[in-house]
């Protein structure tokens, strides 16, 4: 699920998109799928499954820009975020994006922490 500025941009909100913040449903199978997807577009090696399962934020540089995998956020908030999320069509691909209010809330929380 896309959260953060990329989700806001897809939802037509004005946001400067520097990278893509992604959240996945917790679970080993999903980590495996995430790593498989990133392997096709990453510049350099994809971080290990252990890093994804134990890490908080795992950044991955890809040929399409930086992807921050918000693992801790997924572990804590997946169910709540999923409830407000919906699929949006990007070219011919349905992409799950967080609701605008959830994306704004997360963005504010992260930006405020970064500015502290």
């Amino acid at each position, binding site marked *: 699920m896309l959260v953060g500025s990329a989700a806001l941009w897809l939802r037509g909100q004005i946001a*400067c998109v520097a990278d893509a913040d992604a959240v996945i449903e917790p679970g080993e199978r999903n980590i495996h799928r995430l790593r498989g997807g990133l392997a*096709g*577009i990453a*510049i350099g090696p994809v971080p290990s499954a252990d890093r994804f399962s134990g890490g908080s934020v795992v950044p991955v540089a890809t040929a399409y820009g*930086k992807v921050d995998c918000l693992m801790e956020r997924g572990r804590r908030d997946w169910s709540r975020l999923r409830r407000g999320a919906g699929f949006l069509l990007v*070219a*011919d*691909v349905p992409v799950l994006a967080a609701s605008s209010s959830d994306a704004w809330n997360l963005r504010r929380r992260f930006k405020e922490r970064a*500015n502290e």
Partner: protein
Amino acid sequence: MSERTGLGVVEIALLEALETSRFLRCDKALASVEERIGLAPGYAYEVLVDLARPWTMPVNLVQGQGNFGSRGNDPPANFRYTEARVTRAGRAALAAERAEMAPLPIAIINGNTYRAGLRPPFRPHAVFDAVREAIRRPGVTDAELTGMVGPPYFLTGCAVAGDLTALAAGRRTELSLQAQVSVSDDRRTVVIENIPPNVSTDDTASIIASRATASRWASDHPGLHRVTHLPLADLRNETSDRSSPFGRIVCTPTPGTPPEQLREMLLEVTGVRTTMPVALPRPLPDLIRHWVQANAGEGLLDSLAALEHAIP
């Protein structure tokens, strides 16, 4: 940070160690730094490499000789195999540090984004002009000073855009840095030059190449493939230390693809366009005024002239 130049303790120790007329082997300079401030050579060498690379900061304080790495992914050679000495600007900085001349606004000019900091660099002569104006005309307005300094300036020559008003006001913001992308005169190639400083030219070339190969999901998602795939027949990374130190990648479009179309697509590719978070410790006009007031009574105009003559 030194109040007279804004340089850090390690930078000053390095300049002092390299204050020789001839090139000095870096391991000897680093041993001297370790003796003075106790910093291990491996750490001090990272700072020295930044000082010696000609593309990192507008006021180059150290001249390197040997392999200090490239704008791509080539690392510098071990410090046993490189040499360095201070530049004329480096000597001016040391003179200012020792109070042999008035302070110099080196930190304002060089910033610290080359070490992943937030302060961006500015055009040296623009800062000199703004400082002179603040000395000569204390009533100069904030807008005038901001206008004189202009936007951040990166030596690679990339285009800079973003909320410059926020930056000048001392607020954290994000710059968009873009390489120059042009269609060659014979319209056979699209040339990428002046690649942003916060990306490796090798990585940019790899990204472009990977975007030109068919993804494994291309057949499942032809629409996405169409908008993300680069119609590229050939790519050459012509970045070199001598002829194109700031990056040069030459792309040949596939037959039938207008070069202008490829150019438009390349402008959106990561590495050709990057972002950089930036912030100044206080509003830009305040930064200049504060610096002038803090050093009032010293011969700032003379020291500015000396530094101005010391940089190309």
